[in-house]
Every structure is written in structure tokens, then in C-alpha cells.
């Protein structure tokens, strides 16, 4: 049973549409991630759900009740802003207690709940600190405690880790999911960072220019991008134009040569498709490839060390650039200008049945 249901929502800003006919739902206790580049409309969608903006078309319901005419302060939702929007004139306790005071809870209950929340986010002992004296990570925790304190039935998070540095982000990403799951709250999480989305979400909704372009579990989305655009957005850049030449076995003709695919796709002979080669699915070979794998040859253009892997940019003689991630090992590391041969593991290639944009 869907808790929140968004049906055919559209929104115009100054005459130009920012959301086209967007529909999605969230289940009870689910963490749904709205993922997309900046300007794709994900924050607008979140604000419409929160009641801070109104949709021009479409409707929404929550727990079976229509939501469209409920003012923001009666929705009983929580929203964590990217800049946290902590009240500058209130200390940590007063920030966290705000929503509880709005419910006119007795003082003792407010205090108990605030203490519980601060313990939950690991800020016990920070009660009377001024919010402006806190570090970014601490502010983020106060914001989380504040939005969770009134026990919202739906929590929305707008790029909650967006203004933190990389290391802190990595740490808080996992902690955030743990806290949300411990509380069991239904959450909509907006981000432009696919790693963050994959780490936090149960389900990912990918948006592009006001459209929802794909929904699914992080694993499914990464395994089967719905389009070249999604693949590119997820960091899968080796996209090669291809043409189906036979159906059994499924074979495509590309500038790199002919590829045979294991997975079945509903395509027709002669159809133009896109071939996706995963960057992590290659290794250097000295001579002939192993049985069942495909060989790609090219000239090394760049080879840069990235810690856990090397990033290798090669240029195929057909003029295509391909990027691979190589696990460093004892073998010789190719230098720019050197010709190399890379063996692709089976399953490293898949077909995207849509024209590249």
C-alpha cells in the first residue's frame, strides 16, 4: 500500500515547465531517492510534496487522503534543507524542540523527546550550544534531529550532505541510512550524487529535465540503465553506437568490431542500439584473450593513479575514446602512446535500446 502517491504532477516556472507529468509513490518505511543533475526538478518536486510550492497540474494523496489543499504546517511532514535552515536565534535544544512546541506538547515531554533525539544523532551534551558555533557535520545532525523530533510520517531530505566535505559525507551517508532505518520513517531523499543515492536509498528515481527517466533498486538501475543518458549520468561513459546484425545469437556491429551478447533483448535485426562497456570490467592482456571474453585494442592516451584503481583512457583506431578502471597489480603499467589490448569480462557489455541523445 503506497503511503504517498504523486500522480501526474506538472509545474511551470515563469512559463517554462520544470516538471512534466511526474508520478511516483513511496511505501511505508521506504527510503526513496530522487536522483538527478541540478536543475532536473527534483527539489521542486520535493517542495511540492512538502506544500511549499503548488503544482500546476496533477494531484497527491497521503495515506489515502488528498493532500493538495492541506497547508504546509498541517501536513505533519519533516523536511531537512540543504543549508539546514537552523534558526539562528535559538540554541540546539530550542531548534530541536520547535516542532514539538508547535504540537503544544507538555514541557516535560518536549524535554524528554529532545534528549532522545540528541542521543539518536549523537549530539548529547550539545544542548545549549549556539547553532552557529557548530561545525557543518554537527549542524547537519541538529537539522536531522529537528526534523525527526515531531515524529513526521514522511521525512524529506534535500541534498542533506551537499554542503559537507567528501570524507565527512562518506561517513554520514551510512550513519544517516542507519538512523532513518532505526526510526523506521518513510523518507524521500534528494541528491545529485549517485554514490550517495545508492548508499542511502531502497529505491532510486532518476530524473532528467523534469521527467522521471527510471525507477528501481540501486542495483537494478546500475545494472540496466534505461537509456544512454542514464548510463552517462551514472558514470558509465563507454557508450558505442551499434546495429543489430543477428538475433540468435544476439550480435551487434560496432566501430570496435562485432560483439556477441548473452542477455536477451527485444530488438529487431537492423535496429540502431547503444553498446555499453562497463569501465570496471576489463583487464590487460599480453597476448590472446581468454575463452569467452572480448578483446579491445587501442592506444593509451592517459593513465592516472586514483588510489584504489588506475583510470586508463584509450583511443580506439576508429576514433572512439574508452575509459577503463584497472586494479593495480604487478603487471606492467601502460604508458601514454603505447598500444594495449584489454579483455572484457562476459557481462561487462550490455545493450541500451534507445538512441543516444
Amino acid at each position, binding site marked *: 500500500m503506497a503511503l504517498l502517491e504523486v500522480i501526474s504532477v506538472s509545474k511551470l516556472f515563469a512559463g517554462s515547465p520544470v516538471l512534466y507529468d511526474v508520478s511516483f509513490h513511496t511505501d511505508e518505511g521506504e527510503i526513496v531517492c530522487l536522483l538527478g543533475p541540478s536543475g532536473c526538478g527534483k527539489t521542486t518536486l520535493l517542495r511540492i510534496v*512538502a*506544500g*511549499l510550492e503548488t503544482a500546476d497540474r496533477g494531484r497527491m494523496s*497521503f*495515506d489515502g*487522503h*488528498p*493532500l493538495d*489543499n*492541506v*497547508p*504546509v*504546517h*498541517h*501536513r*505533519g*511532514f*519533516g*523536511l531537512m*534543507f540543504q*543549508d539546514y*535552515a537552523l*534558526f*539562528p*536565534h535559538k540554541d540546539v535544544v530550542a531548534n530541536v524542540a*520547535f*516542532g514539538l512546541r*508547535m*504540537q503544544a506538547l507538555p514541557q516535560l515531554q518536549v524535554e524528554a523527546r529532545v534528549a532522545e533525539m540528541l542521543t539518536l544523532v549523537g549530539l548529547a551534551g550539545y544542548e545549549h550550544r549556539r547553532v552557529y558555533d557548530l561545525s557543518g557535520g554537527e549542524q547537519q545532525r541538529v537539522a536531522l534531529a*529537528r*526534523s525527526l523530533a*515531531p515524529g513526521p*510520517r514522511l521525512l524529506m531530505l534535500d541534498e542533506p550532505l551537499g554542503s559537507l566535505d567528501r570524507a565527512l559525507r562518506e561517513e554520514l551517508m551510512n550513519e544517516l541510512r542507519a538512523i532513518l532505518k532505526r526510526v523506521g520513517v518513510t523518507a524521500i531523499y534528494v541528491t545529485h550524487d549517485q554514490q550517495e543515492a545508492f548508499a542511502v536509498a531502497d529505491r532510486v528515481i532518476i530524473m532528467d529535465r523534469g521527467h522521471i527517466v527510471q525507477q528501481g533498486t540501486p542495483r537494478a538501475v546500475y545494472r540496466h540503465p534505461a537509456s544512454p543518458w542514464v548510463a552517462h549520468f551514472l558514470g558509465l561513459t563507454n557508450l558505442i553506437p551499434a546495429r543489430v546484425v543477428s538475433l540468435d545469437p544476439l550480435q551487434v556491429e560496432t566501430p570496435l568490431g562485432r560483439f556477441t551478447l548473452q542477455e536477451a533483448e527485444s530488438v529487431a535485426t537492423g535496429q540502431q542500439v547503444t553498446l555499453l562497456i562497463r569501465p570496471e570490467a576489463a583487464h590487460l592482456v599480453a597476448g590472446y584473450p581468454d575463452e569467452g571474453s572480448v578483446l579491445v585494442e587501442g592506444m593509451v592516451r592517459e593513465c592516472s593513479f586514483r588510489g584504489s584503481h588506475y583510470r586508463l583512457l584509450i583511443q580506439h583506431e576508429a576514433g572512439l575514446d574508452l575509459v577503463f578502471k584497472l586494479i593495480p597489480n604487478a603487471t606492467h603499467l601502460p604508458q601514454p602512446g603505447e598500444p594495449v589490448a584489454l579483455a572484457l569480462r562476459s557481462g561487462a557489455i550490455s545493450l541500451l535500446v534507445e538512441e543516444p541523445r
Partner: protein
Amino acid sequence: MRVGSRFSQSWAKGRKWQRRAASLIYLLPLAFLALFYFYPLTEIFSLSLAPQGKLDLAPFRTIFTAPYYVRVLGFTTGQALLSTLLTLLAGMPAAYAFARYDFRGKSLLRALTTVPFVMPTMVVAAAFTALLGPKGHLNAWLVAALGLDSPPLHLQHTLALVLIAHVFYNATIVVRLVGGFWANLDPRVEEAARVLGAGRWQTFREVTLPILLPSIIAASLLVFLFCFTSFGVILVLGGPQLTTIEVEIYYQAVPLFHLPLAAALSIGQMAFTFAIMAVYTRMQAQAAVPLNLRPIQATQRRLPSLRRGSLRSHSPRPCPLTLPRHTGTARSGQAGQVERGGQVWRAHLTVWGSVGGLLVLLLAPLLALIDHSFSLEGTYTLRYYKALFTNPLQSYFYVPPAEAIRNSLLVAGATVALSLVIGLISAHLLTGPSDPLKTILDPLFMLPLGTSAVTLGFGYIIALDQPPLNLRASPLLLPLAHSLVAFPFVVRSLLPVLRGMNPHWREAAGILGASPPRVVREIDLPIVARALLVGAVFAFTVSMGEFGATLLIARPNFPTMPIVIYRLLGTQGALNQGQGLAMSTLLMIVCAVGFLLIERFRVGEIGEF
């Protein structure tokens, strides 16, 4: 689940109604400006251009051809130029010291340099009479020190006295505007010039000065404008011989009652000041261009201690004082130490010479005023203060002076209320996303600041004492005029806070369950409260000290404190003079306390020019 569809419908309706009411409220400041600013000004226009109902340019011909008026115009411009030059000379060294050095008590000293700026003109006039007048402190001291028979300084009613008073008033503009810009200027720009081989003076001339120039010009224009329209200082300290356009407008309008001539002078002056204002806003916009601006912490050196121990200590870090890093610090041994010692002395001389010198100039008259108000023939007495509360028989005043204190407080209270309401609505109108309307409204709300008070008062006399809007006898006339002068200050106090309001704060409160009125109470009001207080104190101080407009429109039996001071100082007799000084001291204390409150509570850039 707190979802109620019945409620939500009425809420949506309520919001529509609220929006309509809100747009009506926005008309209030516009109506206020139209009625009490533009209407009087258009009356001045019609009076000067068409005195008898048909076009007649005779008044204009007179002011541009008659030798007397040409002289007045020349004197007004000349004294303003001289004052500006002297103010720059007095203010620049202190601006440098405040910008480039960090020393104990700096913020207090900087605040003290601003005190004169908030002093009512009558207080300043009284203070300079007390310091430099025939019976002033300086003359008394010179007589005693040199054993003279008569006071050697005859500054009363001279240009010199007027110029000194103008420097006193406006030095803080240079310190704040130029110093503020200088403080954020990256010293590495200067260091780069030094490394490239420029000497100290060359660096200043080739690098620092050109970068500072927009702010120096902006400050100069502002000082020039204030001196050009100076009224009270000239009227009291300049005496009958020295007449600026502003003073001439008053003479023509009130004692001589040549209204068309006064109107023509007003228009000429207004055209001129608006031209200057236009240049000033452009210069200020240029000065605001971030040219490598850095936080103040990164641009200032601590003033090192003069104690010998600290001179000897070998610090591994480069000494924070030495400007030329490539000399001195890298060297060791006797020579380097001596040089460092010399630089420490020079730094102290720079800071205390410039800041101390300026402060003596600025504070001596005020201290002399206090001292004089308590002394009678060499002994300290409260006689003048007591006399304020009696009405001596020989007095031709309508009211005992103390009643003026009550009048001033009443007017100031009404001004605070009025200007806060208008200012709050105006500031609210100016916040939010920018649109073409706001870019017009913003300078429009600042217009009253660029209009001379005497012109304003004159406009009130001719426009508001006849139908359709007859306020001649209304007790609201003074608060209306004062609010017009004060509400731009309220707007300026509120704008930074309102613009700094994160809209997410309100949204967060709403999501957490606060209804729109509750959001105002919990979020907007507490955050804006301090700025409102600052605006209120500004309005109060402006109203307490306002002289130019008040002199024209106050009813004779309802004088305010500055009016009574003017009358008392203009009357012979030690008791009258003493009472004037006592009243000035009281007014000075009120304004100084107000100023301290503003400094204490202001947020960010509030109150900058």
C-alpha cells in the same frame, strides 16, 4: 494525520485575502512619500516658476544674476570645497591607522570618532562656542598661559570656525568609508609592488591610492554634500556675514517672506544635490566592486608592544609589524634589532598620532561644552540646569526651557512610531527577489536624505497650511517632517537583516507545524527585533536633534530642544548662554546614549552611509 479539507479551503481563501491586504499596506509608504515629500516639493516648484499662477522666471534670473546671490553661491561652494579638503586631510591618517593596525580599544576609539556625526547641529554650535568662543576654554587657557589682557582668538563668526566645525562633523565619513574599504584591501597587492621594487611612497601613489580612489571620491562627495547644505553650523557659528544657500532660503522664507525667491533657491540647490547624489551612488557602487577584498583579520597587523623585552625576543615567524618583509626580519644581529625597534616606534607614532590627534579634535569641543555648562565664574554650579526649569521674569520665551524637553520627547516618540511603521513596510517591500519596481523604489526611499531640511520645512509651510491638506495647527506636523528624515535610516537598518533572512527558516518553521502568524512571532520578529530597535533609536536621535525643518515649521509656543538652544545662544546674558549650554549638554547625552545603543545592537553593515 492532520489533514482536514474543510480547514484547508478556508486557509486557501484566507491566503488570497491576506495577499490583497498586504498589497494595500504596501501603498502606505508610497502615499506617505507622495503627500509629505513630493506634494510640498511640487508646491515649491509651482511657487517659484509661477508665483502668480503664470510662468514667471524672474526669481531664477535674480538668483543667477544679482551679485549678492552669485556671492552666496560662490561662498557655499567654496566653503564646501575647503571643508571637504580639510576633512580628507584630518580623516585619512586615522582611516589608515584603523584599517591597517589592530590595537587595544580600537573598536571603542572608532566608535568615538562617529559620535560627532550623530550630534545635533545646535549641540555642535554650542560646543564650539564653549571651546573656541571669546569666553571659551582655549582663549581662557591662552590668556592664562601667556598673561594676556584679552582673548587672542577671535573666531566667532569666521570662516575658520565654520570649517573646523565641518571637519568635526564629517571626519568620521572619511574614517568609515575609506577606512572600511582600506581594511578589506589585500595587503599582498601592496607587497607585490614592494617586491617589484616600488618604494613606500611609490607603492602608495601607484597602487594603494588608485585602488582607494573610488571610496575617497565617494567620501568626498558625501562630505561636500553635507557641507554644501550645512545650515545650523553656518547660522550660529557663521553669524550674519556668512550665508550659504540653505541659510539664505531660511532668511528669504521666514524673516523676509520672499517666498518665490526662496523657492527658486530651493530648486537650484535640489538640482545640484541630486546631481551630486547620482555621482555618489555610482561611485559607491564602484567602491563596492570586490577588488581582492579579504577579511579584515588577514589585512591587519597587531600593534606590537613598546616594552624592550618584546623587541629583543627572536620570533621565528616574520614580525607581524614590518611592512617590508624582505628587510629587517630576515637579518639578525644588532642592526636588524635597531631597525625593528625604530619601526615599532614609527607604528606607534602613526597610530596614536593620527587616531589620537583626530580624537582630540573631535572630543575637545564636546568636553568643553560639558565643562562650560557646569561652570560659573570659575566655580562649578548647577545653576544653569536649575534655571531650565524656571521661567525668569525677564524672559520673552513663551515657555520655560524644560517644556522643550517634554516637547522633544513627545515629537521623538511619535516620530519613532511613525517611521518604524513606514520603514518596516518599505523595507519589506524592498526585500525578496529583485524586480524593476524595486530598483526604482530603493533610491526613491532614500530621496529625503538628499533633500535639505530647510527646503523640506519650507515646502511644509507653503503646502501644508492650506486646503486640501491643512496641518498648520496639527501636532502631527513635526513628527511627519521628522519621520520623513528618519525613515530612510529605519529602512537602512532593517534591509540587511531582512535581506539576510533565509527563506528556509520560515519554511522549516511551517513544516514543523507553525501557522503563518506563528511563523511571524517565532521567526521573523525575534530576528528582526534588534534591527527594529536600532531603527527606533536612529529615528529617536534624528528627531531629537532635527533643527533645519523644525526651525521653519515648529509653532512658537511648541519649541523643541534644538530650537530653544538656538534662541538661548542667540540671546545676550551669561544666564541665557549658560542655559543654552546646559540644554545642549542634555541633548548631547541623549544622542550619545542613542548612538551607543545603535553601536551595541546593530547587526552587520547597518548604519553605514
